[in-house]
C-alpha cells in the first residue's frame, strides 16, 4: 500500500508570509478530500507532495523514502497531479498527443502509452475526440482532458485539484466514478474541492486546512459533524447535513438517499 508521510513541513513563497506552518500527516489508501478556505494552502500542499515545490523545513516520505532525494521526473512516475487550471497543463494541438505526452515521458513505449491514453479518454468520455484540438473544447472538456492525461500515466497516487470546476451534474458523476475506479485499483486518491456534497458522496477521509495548518482530519461524516470548526474554516456542511442541523435532528446525514430513507422509516409525510 502506498503511503505518504509528511513531517513537520513548513513552506512559504515569501519570507514575510508563511503558507504552511508545520504540517504533520500520513496519507494512506483511504480516498481523501482536502477542503478549506481560499488561500489556506491546499494547492501549495499538493504541489509539495509532487515535488514541484520543496519544503523549507520538514520532510515528505513516499513509501518511506524522502522525496528530497528524488527528482520531479522520478516523482512523476509515482504521483500524478491534475492542475486546477487545465490551461496550465495543456499544450498540444491534438487531444491524443496531449494525453500520451505524460506516459511517454515516464518511460512507457508508444503502444503502451496509446493503450493507456485511449483507456483514460474512455473513462472521461472523450473517446470520439482523439483528433480534436484541446483548445477548441470548452473549459469543462479541457478539465476532463487534463484528468485523462494524468490517468494515462497510471501512477500509484492521483491528486485532483478542484476537478469539479465547470462540470455539470453528469460531469461530476463521471468524476465520482473515476475516483471509485482508482480506489478499487488500489491507488491513493487525493482531491482538493469546494463541493461539499461531492466530498460527502465520494471520500472516506476529509482533511480541513485553515490558515496553513490542519484544523480537522478524520472520517468524512465525523468532520462534517463539527459545525463550529467548519465555519471557522469558511466551510459549510453538505446541504443535507445543513437541513438536519436546522431541523434539530440528533442524527446527521450527508446524502439525500440516507436522509430520505430515514424519514420514510419514521413515517413522516407531508399532510
Amino acid at each position, binding site marked *: 500500500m502506498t503511503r505518504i508521510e509528511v513531517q513537520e513541513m513548513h513552506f512559504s513563497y515569501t519570507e514575510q508570509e508563511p503558507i504552511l506552518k508545520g504540517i504533520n500527516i500520513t496519507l494512506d489508501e483511504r480516498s481523501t478530500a482536502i477542503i478549506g478556505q481560499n488561500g489556506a494552502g491546499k494547492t501549495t500542499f499538493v504541489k509539495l507532495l509532487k515535488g514541484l515545490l520543496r519544503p523549507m523545513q520538514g520532510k515528505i516520505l513516499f513509501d518511506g523514502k524522502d522525496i528530497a532525494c528524488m527528482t520531479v521526473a522520478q516523482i512523476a512516475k509515482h504521483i500524478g497531479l491534475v492542475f*486546477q487550471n487545465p490551461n496550465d497543463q495543456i499544450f498540444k494541438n491534438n487531444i491524443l498527443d496531449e494525453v500520451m505526452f505524460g506516459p511517454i515521458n515516464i518511460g512507457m513505449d508508444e503502444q503502451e502509452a496509446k493503450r493507456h491514453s485511449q483507456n483514460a479518454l474512455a473513462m472521461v468520455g472523450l473517446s470520439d475526440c482523439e483528433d480534436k484540438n484541446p483548445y477548441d473544447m470548452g473549459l469543462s472538456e479541457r478539465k476532463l482532458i487534463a484528468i485523462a492525461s494524468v490517468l494515462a500515466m497510471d501512477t500509484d497516487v492521483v491528486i485532483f485539484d478542484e476537478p469539479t470546476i465547470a462540470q455539470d451534474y453528469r460531469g461530476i458523476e463521471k468524476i465520482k466514478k473515476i475516483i471509485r475506479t482508482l480506489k478499487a485499483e488500489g491507488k491513493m486518491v487525493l482531491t482538493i474541492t469546494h463541493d461539499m456534497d461531492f466530498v460527502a458522496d465520494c471520500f472516506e477521509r476529509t482533511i480541513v486546512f485553515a490558515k496553513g495548518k490542519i484544523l480537522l482530519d478524520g472520517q468524512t461524516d465525523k468532520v462534517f459533524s463539527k459545525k463550529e470548526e467548519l465555519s471557522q474554516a469558511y466551510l459549510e456542511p453538505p446541504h443535507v447535513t445543513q437541513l438536519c442541523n436546522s431541523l434539530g435532528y440528533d442524527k446527521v446525514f450527508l446524502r439525500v438517499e440516507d436522509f430520505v430513507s430515514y424519514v420514510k422509516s419514521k413515517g413522516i409525510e407531508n399532510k
Partner: protein
Amino acid sequence: MAKIVAEHLKYKYPLSEKLALYDISFTIEPGEFIGIIGENNAGKSTLCQAMVGIVPNFYKGAYGGKVLIGDMEIAKSNISDICKKVGIVFQNPFNQVTGCKLTVYEEVAFGLENMGLPRSEMIDRIDYSLKLLDIYKYKDRNPFDLSGGQMQRMAIASIIAMRPEVIILDEPTSQLDPQGSEEVFRAVQNLSREGITIIMVEHKMEKIAEYSDRVMLLHEGKLIAFETPEKIFSRDDLDCYGVTAPAYTRICKSLGIKNKKTGFYPVTLEETKSLIGFSEKERCPYDQN
C-alpha cells in the same frame, strides 16, 4: 436601467456545423436576478457572450436575430459603448487578467482607467470592491501570485468596480470556498436590489434556487424554459437536460412533499425545513428523541 431583449437569437461558431444558439427569445426586466442552468455545451457561456457582443464580434461566425440592452443593439454596437452598460465575469478568471498590471489594485483599476474616471472616484470604487470581495489585503500582490479562488474574487471585483447596469457572471464561484461563495451571492443580490440586472450561469442549484428571480434552462442551444426556480426544479424531465434539482427539492420529491400554497416542490432550505418540520411535529409528537 435597461431592459434586455433577445429576439430570435441564432448563432453558429465558425467551422462548426451546429448552431450553438437556436432561436432564443426572452425579455429580462431591470434589476432581475436571472440564473442560467443547463448541461455542458448547452450554450450557457455562448449566450452570456452574446449579451456583451463577444459573440459575434470577437468570434465571428454566423449570427441571426438580435439582442437589445435598452435601445442598444449589441451586435451592431462598439465594444467601448457596450462595456459601459454590461460587464462580464469570465468562467476562467485566468483569462480575464489583463497581464499588463503588476498589482491587484491596478488590475481592478484597469477598466476604470479606460472609462476615464477621475482618480478619486476610481480609488473609492476600487477600495469598495476589493473589500466587498475580501481581497483588500492582497491589493499590492501580483495578480498571477493569487490562488485560484483569490483570482476569481479579483475578476468579480474588477467588474463590480465598473458599475455597469447589467452584470453577467459565468460560474463566478466555481473556485470559491463555501462561505466565500455565499458572500458573493449575497453581494450580487444586493446589487440586483439596487437595480442592476444580474445574469448568472451556475451549476450550484441550491444557490440558483435561493437567489434567482427566474431561471433559464438551456439545452443544445435551445431555451427550454424560463420560469421561477420552483417551477423549473419541479419539472420531472430535468434528467433529460442533464440537470439536477437542489438537494432539498430531491428530498421533497422522494418524500412527495409539495408546498400546498404554490403547488410546487420546495427549492430552498428554509422552505423545506418549514414543511418537513411541521409534518414531523404533527405526525410524531412523541418521537422527538
